[in-house]
């Protein structure tokens, strides 16, 4: 496992269980509620930043595909409820992806006990000059 290229995997969150299907990833991740960024977001009231969900998806896909990715487009993402890492440390992450030339389209959702917390769709660049 290469960890040098992961921004959050290992420190901010860890993968508890994972299941693969073709073009689909289903994981259970555990958020580290003591990560330094929760000191600032927000003081005394930790909330997982929406952009960190995107970074988590990137880290997980990078590790799964053993490829470097770069987020190029976020076509739509909806953060329906704030994610409190103390109340919901275990999150279900489901990522569907399809290759499209040098891009990787993805649709992902984060759930906690059947409750959808956010939905994200966008595309990563997979090949670089």
């Amino acid at each position, binding site marked *: 496992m290469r960890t040098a290229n992961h*921004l959050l995997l290992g420190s901010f969150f860890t993968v508890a269980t994972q299941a693969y299907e073709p073009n689909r990833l289903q994981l259970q991740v555990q958020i580290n509620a003591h990560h330094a960024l929760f000191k*600032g977001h927000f003081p005394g009231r930790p909330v997982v*930043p929406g952009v960190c969900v995107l970074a988590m998806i990137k880290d997980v896909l990078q590790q799964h595909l053993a490829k470097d990715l770069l987020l*190029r487009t976020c076509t739509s993402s909806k953060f329906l409820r704030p994610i409190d890492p103390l109340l919901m440390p275990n999150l279900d992450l489901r990522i569907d992806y399809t290759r499209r030339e040098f891009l990787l389209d993805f649709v992902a959702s984060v759930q906690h006990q059947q409750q959808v917390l956010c939905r994200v769709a966008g595309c990563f660049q997979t090949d670089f000059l």
Partner: protein
Amino acid sequence: MSTTALFSSPGTEPAAGLPTAPCLLPAWAARPLVIAAEVEAYIPQQYPFALVDTLYHCQPGEAWAGLRVSPDNLLVQNGYLSEAGILESMAQAVALKAGYEAQDQAASPRVGFIAALKQVHLHALVPVGATLVTHVRIVLQALDVLVVRTTSGYDTTLVADGEMRLFLEPEPALDVAIKALFHADVPADHAHC
């Protein structure tokens, strides 16, 4: 893959013998409204997750904010501010605008969450040491929802642009005012404190 391959535009260092590129920030940027030392009084996010450090200019409907990318930033990876950092900087630019305006009107700033991102395109990453400048334009401001269009860049490079929807936490003072409207038993002067 080397980090430079992530980044398709040429490097920021001018070639030897060429004059340095002119600074494209307008003159008002020389005297920012909010500087790095006092920015945490205006936004709910605090160190180490404050991803905006300067408010250059603010007017009704639009604002310019900046972030100097430091190497010890949490969202810096391989010498570049990551995509998450760029997006968060865009969101906090909106928070800084709202916080500055609230301070101007002696109201407490409201905590805002990113509710949605729409058609956000990233064109480049920001190297450590550069100043990412974000332009915020308010598209729609409702009671608890804010729709903004943001464009970010450094020097002459476009970094990201897109539409962002922020959900603002209801104001406590507004709650009292609404209760005063619907329940006559709450004293009316209570609504203004």
